[in-house]
C-alpha cells in the first residue's frame, strides 16, 4: 500500500474530524454542566 498525497489529505481530514467531534462533545458537556449547576 503506497502512501500517496491522497492518503496524507485523508489522514489530515480524519484527524480534523476527530478534533471536531471532541469540540462538539465538550460544548455539550459545558451546556450540561452549566444547566446542572444552575438547576440543582
Amino acid at each position, binding site marked *: *500500500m503506497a*502512501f500517496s498525497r491522497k*492518503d496524507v489529505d*485523508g*489522514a489530515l*481530514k*480524519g*484527524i480534523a*474530524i*476527530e*478534533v471536531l*467531534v*471532541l469540540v462538539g*462533545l*465538550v460544548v*455539550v*458537556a*459545558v451546556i*450540561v*454542566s*452549566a444547566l*446542572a*449547576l444552575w*438547576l*440543582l
Partner: protein
Amino acid sequence: MLLKPNKADLRRIVYALGRVVFVVGAAGLLPLTWALARQEWQSATSFVLMIGIALLAGAISTLIAPKDRTLAWSHGMAVVALAWIVVPALGALPLYFSGHYGSPLDAFFDAMSGVSTTGLSVIQDLDHLSDSVNVWRHALQFLGGQGIVLAALTFFAASGILSLYFAEGRDDRIFPSVKSTARFIWLVSGVHALAGISVYMFEGVATLGYGWYRSLFHGVNIFMAAFDTGGFTPQSTSLAYYHSITYEATTAVLMIAGAVSFSLHYMWWRREKGSLKNLEVRTILTTFVITLVAGTIGLAAQGLYTDTASLTRRGFFQILSAHTGTGFATVSNSDLASWKGLAFVGMGMAMALGGMASSTSGGVKSLRVGLTVRAIIDSVRGALLPENAIVSKTYIQNGRHRLTAQLAQSVMTISLLYVGLYLVGTAVGVAYGYPIQDAMFESVSASAAVGLSVGITSPAMPVLMKVLMIGQMWLGRLEFIAAFSLVGFVASWVVGE
C-alpha cells in the same frame, strides 16, 4: 460425538503460535534499545532473555512446521485464545525481573492488563520503575490494541488467516483481503502516532517545561496507552500528574480515535459520506450524551465540583475515558470512589457499553447495543401492528443490512455474556467483603477493558480476585467466542474419538 484433533492439527496450532510469539519477541527490541540507550543494564538483560525465548519459540515452530499450514476455523480460534495467554506470560518476564511485582502472578496480571488494553495495575512503586520497562508496559498495550495476532498477520501470510482476524473480535474487513485491512490499520495507527507524539512533545517542551527526552518518554507512552485505549501511565497519579488541559485535550482526541472503528476511519480518510447514518455512530453518540448527562447531574447533585469549568473538565474527561474503555483518570481513586448515585450510574454505564466494534476498545460495543435496541423496537412494532403487516427489519451500517433473527440472537447472546461476566466479578468482590458499588465498578472495569479503579485493584488484593480479573480481562478482550472455542478444542482432545 467430538472428533479428537490429530497431531497435524496440533502442529498447525503450535506453528502459528510460534510465529505470533516470534513477532512479539521482535517488538521487545524497542524497550531493549531504550534500556541500552538509558544504560539500564538489568532491564536490558531481562529483555534479552525474553527475546531469546521468543526466538527459540519461533525456531521450534519452524522446525515442526507441517506441510499443510492451512488453519481451519477451530485452529484459528484456538491459536488466538492461546496467544492471548502465552504472549502476556512472555511479556510478564521483564516486568517480574524489574523487582516491582510481589509475585509472578502480579506481573502476569499487569501483562494481561496491558495486552487486553485494560490498564488496571498491581505494580508496586510505579514512580520508580525503569524507563525501558515502562515503555514495555505501554508497548504491550499498543500490541494488544492493534491485535497481537493481527500484528503477526502483517508479517506472515498464512492460509486461513480470516479465522484469526475474526477470533480477535474484529467484525468487519475494510478491504477484501485481511492483509490489506491489517496494513490499513497500521497506517492509521502510524499516522496517529506521528501526529500524537509530535503534539505531546511540543506540549512537554513548550507548556510543561520538560526537556526533550522527558517529553519524548511521556509522549510515546501516553500515545500508546491513549490510541489503543489502554490507560497505563508512567506514573501512579495517571493523567492528573500533568495538570495540563492541553495534554488532556490531546489525549481526548486520541481516545476518540481509538474508540472509532477502523472502517469509520476509512470512511473519513476516503471522504465517503454517510457515516452519521451508521447505526453504530448514532448509538455511541446517544449513549455518550446519556452517560455524560447522568454523570454530570450526579456530580452536580453531590456538590463535588461547584463551578462549571471544573465540573465539565472532571466529569467530561472521566466519562470519555470510561466510554472509550481507556481508563485514564484526572481524579484520584478515592475521589472516584466518592462518585455516588447518578454519577456512579453514568460511569458504570459508560464503562459497560464501551466503544465501537473493530476498534481498540472493549465492552459490549456500540454496534451490539444499537442492534439490541433495534431488535427490541422491531419486536414491539411487530406486536402492535396487525398480524399481516410487514415490519421492515433493516439497519444502516456501511450500507443497508437485514436484521435477521439469527443476528439478533447472536448479538444478544454476547451482550448477555458480558452482563454475566460483570455480575460474576461483582459477586466475588462482595463475597470478599467489598461494598457492592465498588465491587461492581472494578468488575465492569476489568471485563470491559477500561482500567479505572476505585482502589480495590492493588498488590494486596486476594489471589483469587487477581486470577478472576485476569480471566475477565482475557474473556472480555476476546469477546468470549475464541475462549469458548479453545475450551471446546481441549475437550475434544481429551474426550474426543
